[in-house]
């Protein structure tokens, strides 16, 4: 069987970083080709190249004996390639039908043919089994329906190759079935489908062919029947653990945090919750790693515990044996909880303000107890913190936005250390920073736990999770699927559980 399209020796750099290294990838007609790998393995980059999002790659893409080079999404569409991205690309304030024909309207002498639009959109949607009025506004529809509309829109383009990047991440069980029916229908029409997913169940049910990437390199590619689950996990994990993480033997003492039946709902309760009745605890001086792939709900769990999603959380939280109600971030800070968010630009730092202002931002209740600020005291606190974190900044009065990524992260960490926390929720503490700065942050985590602080750590980097955690909880779509003690920890077990396998380990504590 000849492939519809084959990508040969694709290499791609982001700045100096090689994110794809001579990857081969072929798509065959009437097949669902699963593209798997850990976060950051290069899956999304690879499909984005095919979809025309990046044209500065090295290598060849061949379609029907002709080399193609999709230069833009529109260009890719013309070549018969359509992508459905994780982030929806529908325009919420427009109607279904207007979205459907966005960028490719049917026109007669320059005027849009509204009636023909409505008719054609209605037909395609009903054939695909999506029950929705074409005149309704996208923002009024549930995310699941939006996702299905996005997929059917790609069908309308008559695309021969459809790329779906985690299409099921926001869908509930019923909508997943509609999606699968749709996928099978597309397969029957001899289209080629690239399907990125983190869920073993979906791989089982859909895969005809599987390709695994790791660290930008091709690990293996084979027919699904030739890749049993165990082999798949091996392919994904693969790497040897290096002795690069200096976790000290912890001094774990009494219980600091207990969470029981804790849920975090979505804005609309009709959808499955981000976090569904999880229970766990953390001791003083302990690092509890929370493993999970995209959509596991770990970040939302942190926001919920921190009081940042008021009215959307349920469950019991106790600190050092005392039940507490945390209604706002201010509450949480006062009770000794800190949250280092996973996106320092969007939610962590105020980049237009100085290093000092940022370091003091969460401690103003103490630093300006009467309301009047004490700039000299603030400078003292900031410079001490700067020293403790080995912050490299020309001046503490410079804007945080002008610092390098690693130093920005240190400022974000410094902000929380200044509050004197007892519990630190760290969400991707080493994202986007260089190796040197990472090491410094690992050392700091050792220091904090030695002082009795307990840390909950969410990270998408498996080696970091394995090496720094004293215990690992694994989440999959909002529920805990495994709890592993330090002795039980292995990359395979974490990954299995993160992909939804529930019997894969844990001592059931």
């Amino acid at each position, binding site marked *: 069987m000849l492939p519809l399209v084959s990508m040969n020796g694709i290499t791609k750099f*982001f*700045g*100096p*970083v090689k994110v794809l290294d001579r990857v081969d990838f072929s798509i065959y007609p009437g097949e669902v080709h699963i593209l798997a790998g850990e976060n950051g393995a290069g899956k999304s980059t690879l499909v984005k190249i095919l979809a025309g999002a990046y044209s500065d790659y090295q290598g060849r893409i061949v379609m029907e004996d002709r080399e193609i080079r999709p230069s833009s999404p529109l260009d890719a569409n013309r070549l018969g390639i359509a992508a459905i991205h994780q982030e929806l690309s529908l325009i919420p304030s427009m109607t279904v039908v207007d979205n459907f024909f966005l960028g490719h309207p049917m026109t007669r002498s320059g005027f849009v043919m509204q009636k023909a639009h409505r008719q054609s959109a209605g037909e395609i949607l009903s054939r695909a089994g999506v029950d929705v009025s074409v005149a309704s506004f996208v923002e009024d529809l549930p995310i699941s329906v939006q996702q299905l509309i996005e997929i059917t829109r790609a069908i309308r383009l008559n695309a021969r190759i459809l790329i779906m990047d985690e299409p099921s991440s926001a869908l509930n069980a019923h909508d997943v079935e509609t999606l699968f029916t749709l996928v099978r229908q597309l397969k029957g029409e001899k289209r080629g489908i690239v399907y990125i997913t983190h869920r073993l169940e979906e791989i089982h049910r859909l895969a005809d062919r599987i390709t695994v990437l790791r660290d930008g390199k091709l690990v293996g590619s084979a027919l699904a029947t030739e890749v049993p689950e165990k082999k798949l996990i091996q392919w994904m994990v693969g790497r040897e653990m290096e002795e690069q993480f200096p976790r000290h033997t912890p001094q774990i003492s009494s219980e600091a945090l207990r969470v029981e039946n804790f849920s975090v709902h979505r804005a609309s309760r009709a959808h499955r919750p981000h976090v569904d009745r999880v229970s766990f605890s953390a001791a003083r001086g302990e690092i509890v790693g929370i493993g999970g792939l995209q959509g596991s709900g770990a970040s939302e769990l942190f926001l919920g515990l*921190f009081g*940042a999603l008021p009215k959307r959380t349920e469950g019991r939280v106790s600190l050092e044996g005392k039940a507490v109600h945390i209604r*706002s*971030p*201010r509450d*949480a*800070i*006062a009770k000794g909880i800190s*949250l280092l*968010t996973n996106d320092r630009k*969007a*939610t*962590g*730092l*105020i*980049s*237009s*303000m100085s290093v000092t*202002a940022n370091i*003091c*931002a*969460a401690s*103003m*209740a103490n630093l*300006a107890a009467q*309301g*009047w*600020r004490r*700039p000299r005291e603030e400078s003292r606190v900031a410079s001490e913190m700067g020293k403790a974190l080995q912050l*490299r*900044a*020309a*001046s503490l009065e*410079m804007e945080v936005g*002008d*610092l*390098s*990524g*690693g*130093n920005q992260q240190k400022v974000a960490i410094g*902000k929380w250390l200044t509050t004197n926390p007892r519990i630190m929720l760290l969400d991707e503490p080493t*994202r*986007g*920073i*260089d190796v040197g*700065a990472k090491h410094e942050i690992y050392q700091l985590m050792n220091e904090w736990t030695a002082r009795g602080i307990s840390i909950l750590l969410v990270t998408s980097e498996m080696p970091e999770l394995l090496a720094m955690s004293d215990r690992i909880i694994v989440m999959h779509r909002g529920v805990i699927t495994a709890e592993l003690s330090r002795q039980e920890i292995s990359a395979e077990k974490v990954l299995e559980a993160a992909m939804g396998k529930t019997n894969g380990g844990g001592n059931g504590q």
Partner: protein
Amino acid sequence: MVSEIREPLRRDLGGGSKRGSSVLQTITRALTSSAGRACLELLLVLLLGVIFNADGAFFKEGTHRDTLRQASVYGILACGMTLVIITGGIDLSVGSVLAVSSVSFALLTMHMDWPWWLAIITCLLVGAVFGSASGALISNAKLQPFIATLALMTFARGFAKYITGGQKISTYVTQGDKVIIKELPPIFKVIDSRIFGGNLAIVSVIFLVCFIVAWIFLARHKWGRELFSVGGNEEAARLSGVPVRMAKFLAYTFSGIMCAVAGICQAAQETQGDPETGAGYELTAIAMVVIGGTSLAGGRGSMGLTLLGILTIGYLQKILSINAVPEAGRLMITGIIIVLAVLTQKRRTK
């Protein structure tokens, strides 16, 4: 994503060996800062005054005195406006709330014979109520500042007309069918007088007091920090425990109080309460803040910059008026200067 040292930092870190080599560098850096540019604008406008000095009128003491006096009411509005704009918001209602305060003051003192201090307190409260109405709509009902204050602007103008019956409130009071002329309450003369041998108008003193209060809050109070952090990154501020809603609410309330102060000064200067007064003042106040270099996007700015902006616009208007430029030309030139000034302030267009 890889960490990289961005340009400004590299320059600062690597500059050690070269430091001291160039005074020029220091000067260019000073000039490229917001304050440097705002100073430059003011100097350019003053230079315009030196060139078009209207037969020496520009060099007379009285001209500068008048400039400050005439800019004072706008300046008071700009004080509140600065705080609001730093949160990333805007207050379009200031001109109308000024009118409400102005007519209330005239009504209470002239027609109802209230003691001056009680009238002032009442006006300040009225201003605070209007300001906090905007504040509540924005921080609690989550309306966009533009819409909320546009509504308040319209409502307040209507309110000013309602309580006056659309008439100007002056010392001519109709009682039954006869008109009596009352004496102008002394507080009007006090506010409209000058001290230091006629060199400093009381309204200018009031402006300076407002300015210093706003400056102290912004620079030295926790609330000032909160305003900057809300404007810089509201979500990060919320997650740092900043009382975002309260900070915004208070900013608009403060702006309302500033409107009330300006309204009292306006009434004193006009010796009447005119429900039509202050129309378009919001735009002058916004222009003063923005020309100073406070970012409309929020998060960056200072009272010092606003002072430079107030003087720039104040002098510009004075220079145009001493040169007897007709209103049509004055408006067009002011428009052009605003665009030029904001273009030079443009930075960080990411």
